[in-house]
Every structure is written in structure tokens, then in C-alpha cells.
């Protein structure tokens, strides 16, 4: 039953208030979008931090699958297989006043 095997999602410190402090969450999904949907259903509120109204990743949120930034590939449509590891990381960014 490998198809139903969970995907490990790594939760960054600022978002652990949505996961009872847990750094890892296991959900089921065959794409990044499905995994993020599953994450939102089990941990309400986390989804809007990650995606905009159109379902795309927010500009200052990055998602890595097995160490690869999904922005360099298929984005939230990136396919996942059993045992894949999805890491979520908000940007550390800023700038000088214009």
C-alpha cells in the first residue's frame, strides 16, 4: 500500500504554533498542492501562510522536496512519492527604506 504512505513535512519554527510545536508532520498526498491541502485540513490556519488565493506559493515562502526548491521545477504541482520529504521555509528577508 505504498500509495497511501505518508509524506513527511518539515515545519519551520514560526509555523509550529499551528502544529502543537511539532517540527515534523506526516500527511498523505501525491503532489505538493495535495500535501499543503492535507496540512491545512489537519492544522487549520497554516495554509493561508503558505499560499495566496490562487493557490500559488507566497513570494516569501519556499518549499523544498528532498532538498530541491520546487520553484526551480513544477511549483505546487511537483509530484511526490512515498517517503519524500517536504520542507517549508519562510524567507528571512528585508531591505533598506527607499
Amino acid at each position, binding site marked *: 500500500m505504498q500509495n497511501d504512505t505518508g509524506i513527511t513535512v*518539515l515545519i*519551520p*519554527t*514560526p509555523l509550529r504554533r499551528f502544529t502543537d510545536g511539532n*517540527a515534523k508532520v506526516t500527511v498523505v498526498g501525491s503532489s505538493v498542492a495535495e500535501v499543503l491541502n492535507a496540512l491545512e485540513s489537519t492544522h487549520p490556519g497554516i495554509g493561508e501562510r503558505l499560499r495566496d488565493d490562487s493557490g500559488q506559493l507566497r513570494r*516569501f515562502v*519556499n518549499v*523544498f522536496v528532498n*532538498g530541491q*526548491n520546487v520553484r526551480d521545477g513544477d511549483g505546487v504541482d511537483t509530484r511526490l512519492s512515498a517517503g519524500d520529504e517536504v*520542507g517549508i*521555509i*519562510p*524567507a*528571512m*528577508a*528585508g*531591505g*533598506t*527604506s*527607499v
Partner: protein
Amino acid sequence: MKTGGSPEAATEHFRLPTEMRAAIIAHAVREAPRECCGIIAGRHGLPMRLYETRNVAVGNRFYEIDPAQLIDLEFRELPEQETEIVAIYHSHPESPAYPSATDVELAFWPDAVFLICSLADRDRPEIRGFRIRDGAIDEVALAL
């Protein structure tokens, strides 16, 4: 002239050892006119190790820590060291050591102290610390 609240009014303190202060200034000078950036890892808010990071932002007026480096730190290196991110630093090569509107807008790590190193006066670099939470800026007094 300082902008915003004075350190004397700060209700929180952050210990920034002399060697880390020197390392941040050296990094800022080396990267100028670009902004430098990095993190300080520690335990219980106490700094233990400084990590310089790559700034992947375009131009001289922004910084963004390389997300690939950040994800490795957050999920591998720091857990292995049993540490966590206690501070984030970046430089303002030509402006005061005070959070910009962009710094506030993009403050996604509320548990970390924000350290800003100003090189506006090259002869007297200045580092100040802040909490940025929900758009509010509170000065954090820096101690040795």
C-alpha cells in the same frame, strides 16, 4: 542621530558577545555596498554560534538569506547542534540601524531578535537589536 526608541527604553536584553559583534561588522564591511546577512544560533535565547549566510537578493538595497542554506540550517545543522535561531542579522550599508518598512513587512520569524548593523558612519559602525512582531518594533538592549 538615532531613529526610533532609545535602548534605555528597552524592556528586553540580548547578549551579543564582543567577538560576534566584531564578526557582524566585519561581514558588513566585506559585503558593502551590498547588505550582508546571517543568523545566530543558540539555546534559550543565548547566542552560541554565528553563521554567515549568502544574500541572494538582487541589488544593494535588499537581503534575502539563501533559502537552500536556511532550510539546511533550520532542519539539519541546528537540530544536530541542539540549537535554534535566536537572532537574525543584516546590514544597512548607508542607512541607520533601525528596521525599514520592508524589514517590518517581511519579518516572518517573530521569535528571533533582529540585529541591524549600520555602516552609515564608516568610522563608527553601529549594531542595534529589535523585536518585530505583528508590525510593531520594540528595541532590544544589547549587552556584552
